[in-house]
């Protein structure tokens, strides 16, 4: 396993070309499959080297491999390899082509180390590492002011969440607990402090997984190259938050409040983002909000006790959302716009992209038998068993909206008549090949969690041995829900039917609210960003006029005193200096005394 990690790190060095990156990534994928094949039941952990000692608690660099790790390894390496192959075509001709692959490789290394880490501190280190890569890649086209601003926003917003994670780690450390995931089961369950720690760790997960109210960075992150959006902001890094919750799940299950918070935040994010996705016109923004929404769904599942359902959806989502982003990238490549209102009828010109995109969309919308159907179905069952009607309702609403906005994108982009002035063409095969492979996964991956495979995935991830049965009622319900969403989109967009009352003032107000993303960015601007700027400006002025002013005031008085002395004893420089020094000191002490009284 040490060798494994070495490979991951070795790739940080000298990355000249894309082929090195792809080859390394492919090798990692092969190794991940090997790990999968040789995984002992119950997983394995390896302590490598001591890293640091904190107040007598040694922290070691270690590797932990269990079924969850293996799943993440497979997802990251397979999707990562495919996206890097795609990038060869997508980034062709960019002036910083090799820089791009260096960043991507650094990201892959950090991401793999993140899922392999056996304790929270190691995870935190690579957690920040992937955050850095995300920031650098979002701002990859840094000449564009929007991209540069989005890079900063991505890092700072996630950093707000990470502060929670950091304090959570500090709490665990200070109360003398081990940071190793393997030891977390033994933590005192009833301790309030542990509940606080769990919530703080969840705050970190919220930042990374773009959950409300820390989701604002993800839509802006679409300024980066689309392949980056696919890899980092859809398939892997944003899922790290869900992974973190799953990884430290015992910490959450011990505290009902913590688990409920996860579910509620997930539900809010899922519904809110899905509704925004319905009004967005930028194809990447639709997908970005969709990602927020689907991540919310995963959190919701985890929070409702559906461990297998949440992780299963994480896996299927990684494949079909990566597919959708790459498809969108292919479209943008062809028509040079991201506005779906300016597309249309593209399926005739881009057959491979069109068909694979539709497969991905059907998977996301949860149509049987595509992958998303099975994992979403699992979530529904878990929520139904959880017994909270509000949470279940949130999932239902999300699912309906998801089908609606994906159908809207399909109708506007690939079907209908062309509204584009650009001469669209199919992308090169280096880009379409990954699309096809991902489409196969998006279509077929769900089966490993279906009753036909006897719930192979669920048993693998939980280590249990249970039969999964068909729940015909749920299947019928969720299919009807998705078809309903698609049908509504068909009526509204293709047929041009107007909903009754959609023109009313009440409705218009609501649509404006959604279309403006609930004004959350504006609220932050007014409540956080502007006050921060004002505070900094005020502190600087305070520093110059008050703090430094006091010092200069002392000096000026001393100088005045010295001038007075000089008039008495003309030309005595020694006295002048002496007086100045003495006066400065005296007055300084007086001022200090005053300051001490103030503070």
């Amino acid at each position: 396993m040490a060798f494994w990690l070495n490979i991951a790190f070795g790739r940080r060095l000298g990355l000249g070309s894309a082929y090195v990156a792809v080859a390394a990534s492919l090798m990692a994928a092969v190794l991940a499959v090997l790990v999968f094949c040789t995984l002992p039941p119950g997983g394995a952990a390896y302590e490598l080297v001591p890293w640091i000692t904190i107040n007598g608690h040694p922290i070691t660099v270690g590797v932990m491999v269990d079924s969850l790790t293996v799943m993440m390894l497979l997802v990251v390496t397979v999707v990562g390899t495919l996206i890097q192959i795609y990038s060869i075509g997508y980034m062709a001709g960019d002036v910083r082509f090799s820089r791009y692959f260096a960043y991507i490789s650094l990201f892959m290394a950090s991401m793999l180390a993140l899922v392999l880490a056996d304790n929270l501190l190691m995870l935190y280190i690579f957690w920040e590492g992937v955050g850095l890569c995300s920031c650098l890649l979002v701002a990859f086209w840094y000449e564009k002011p929007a991209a540069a601003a989005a890079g900063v926003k991505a890092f700072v917003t996630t950093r707000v969440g990470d502060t929670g994670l950091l304090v959570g780690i500090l709490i665990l450390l200070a109360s003398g607990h081990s940071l190793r995931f393997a030891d977390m089961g033994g933590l005192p369950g009833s301790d309030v402090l542990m509940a606080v720690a769990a919530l703080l760790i969840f705050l970190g997960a919220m930042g990374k997984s773009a959950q409300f109210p820390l989701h604002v960075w993800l839509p802006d992150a679409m300024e980066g190259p689309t392949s980056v959006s696919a890899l980092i902001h859809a398939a892997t890094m944003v899922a790290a938050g869900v992974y973190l919750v799953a990884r430290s799940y015992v910490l959450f299950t011990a505290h009902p409040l913590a688990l409920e918070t996860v579910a509620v935040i997930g539900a809010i994010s899922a519904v809110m983002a899905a509704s925004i996705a319905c009004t967005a016109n930028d194809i990447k923004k639709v997908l970005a909000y969709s990602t927020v929404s689907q991540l919310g769904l995963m959190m919701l599942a985890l929070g409702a006790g559906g461990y297998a359902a949440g992780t299963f959806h994480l896996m299927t989502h990684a494949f079909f959302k990566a597919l959708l982003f790459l498809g969108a990238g292919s479209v943008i490549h062809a028509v040079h716009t991201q506005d779906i209102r300016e597309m249309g009828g593209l399926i005739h010109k881009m057959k491979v992209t069109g068909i694979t995109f539709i497969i991905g969309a059907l998977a996301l919308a949860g149509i049987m038998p595509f992958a998303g159907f099975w994992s979403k179905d699992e979530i529904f069952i878990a929520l139904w068993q959880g017994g909270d009607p509000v949470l279940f309702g949130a999932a239902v609403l999300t699912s309906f909206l998801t089908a609606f906005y994906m159908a809207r994108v399909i109708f506007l982009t690939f079907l209908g008549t062309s509204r584009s002035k650009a001469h669209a063409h199919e992308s090169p095969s280096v880009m379409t090949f990954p699309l096809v492979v991902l489409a196969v996964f998006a279509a077929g991956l769900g089966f490993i969690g279906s009753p036909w495979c006897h719930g192979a995935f669920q048993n693998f991830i939980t280590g249990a041995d249970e039969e999964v049965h068909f729940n015909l009622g749920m299947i019928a319900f969720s299919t009807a829900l998705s078809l309903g969403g698609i049908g509504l989109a068909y009526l509204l967009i293709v047929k041009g039917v107007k909903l009754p009352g959609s023109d009313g003032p009440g409705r218009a107000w609501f649509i404006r609210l959604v279309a403006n993303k609930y004004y959350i960015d504006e609220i932050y601007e007014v409540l956080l960003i502007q006050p921060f700027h004002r505070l900094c400006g005020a502190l600087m002025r305070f520093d110059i006029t008050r703090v430094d002013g006091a010092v200069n005031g002392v000096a000026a008085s001393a100088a005045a005193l010295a001038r007075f002395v000089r008039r008495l004893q003309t030309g005595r420089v020694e006295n002048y200096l002496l007086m100045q020094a003495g006066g400065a000191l005296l007055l300084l002490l007086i001022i200090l005394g005053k300051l001490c009284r103030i503070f």
Partner: protein
Amino acid sequence: MPHLLTLIIFLPLAGALAIAMIPSRQVQLIRTTALIFNGAVLAAVTLVAVLFDRTGAGMQFMESQAWIPQVSIQYSVGVDGISLALVFLTALLGFLACFATTMITKRVKEYFLVYQVLMTGMLGTFLALDLVVFYIFWETVLIPMFFLIGIWGGARREYAAWKFFFYTLAGSVVMLLAIVGIYFAVAPHTFNMMELAHTAPLLSAGLQGALFLMFFFAFAVKIPVFPFHTWLPDAHVEAPTPVSVILAGVLLKMGTYGLFRVCVPFFPQALMTFAWLLGVLGAVNLIYGACAAFAQTDFKKMIAYSSVSHMGFVLLGVAAMNSAGFNGSILEMFNHGIITGAMFLLVGVVYERAHTREFSAFGGLASIMPRYAFFLTFMALASLGLPGLSGFVGEFLSLAGIFVIFPKLAIISAVGLIAVVILFLVMVRKVLWGKPRERILWSDMNAGEVAVLIPLCILTLVVGFYPDSILQFQQQAVDMLVKAL
């Protein structure tokens, strides 16, 4: 090598003598001589580090010689795990800053003469084991620095130099009083710091408190601690680049080193009483420095204020009074020297091309100076405490330490850290990102500029990935300090 430390302290002074004998026209020879002597210091310090016994807690390589026996003043020097890191830092930055001194064209001979004296003062301060010797070296630093800023500085150099001089003089005077005070308070009367570590803690609480505060004031000016920090931005803005590197990298550490050498071992009871004050001042330094830095429009001033912010972590670590806090604090001193030293070098690189330090003059430099972009981004990430680079380890240890004692302060500081992150990311955006301005034809960093930064980058990476590389030297000394509390 029986007199290795004495050799290290006075080697730069010997260099000054050698330079004095060279005619001032032979600029190149003067430069080479200074470089050779500083290189020899670095080699000698490395030798000390290699020979250093990492399992020993006490002073090593000790030398003692009666100097003024009437008042029992001894010339006494020695090195332990705490001072070793700082002596190495001084030797390394002293050598690199000397190497990077290319912009000084007037009175080169005098410049290097004064520079060599400064080196002796700094090394002596970190190695002295007698309070009077400590004070003499401390003052020795003040004069050369005054001249370096006052003669070779920028437009407002005289104002900055006088301000620096008077401010630190005020601190020194108070320290001198405290030194005399402690001498007469303890029995038997002594200036020996090793003995004082045993006898001073026996003093009454009130006396300890008074002496602690006097020493603390002297060190606080140097560190600098809010509200005594305003000399720092002025001094930095006016000082030439190598002097800024020394000023931020080494001079500030004299104050924090003093806390560890004097305040912690001599007055444990007072430390317990005033730990909250140190902690609060640390958090204020951290957040106030970051916010004030954020509002600056001058690149160098921004880095100067960010130093104030980073020194907050050192204070927090001292206030923690446990192994994690002390370790973090000492490591943060070392890291800050490396990282901020590099930052000032980087500011110097663009200043020499642009002849201004206003952010508005930069932008889009990543496109035209890729090497510069790499180094600046790297060091900005190290400054904002990115895990994997050295800054994180020191900050994390300090926070872990303070959390045990003052959890609220630790949380406030952790949140305040967001301001530091914003500060450096926005700096990268302002300087490197965006479209390059028209008609900017600056050349990228040359081989010399790169060569100076590479050792600093390597150290940042090594300490970040393997903190024990530094921590193993100081662990025993820190354990002893904690045990004595």
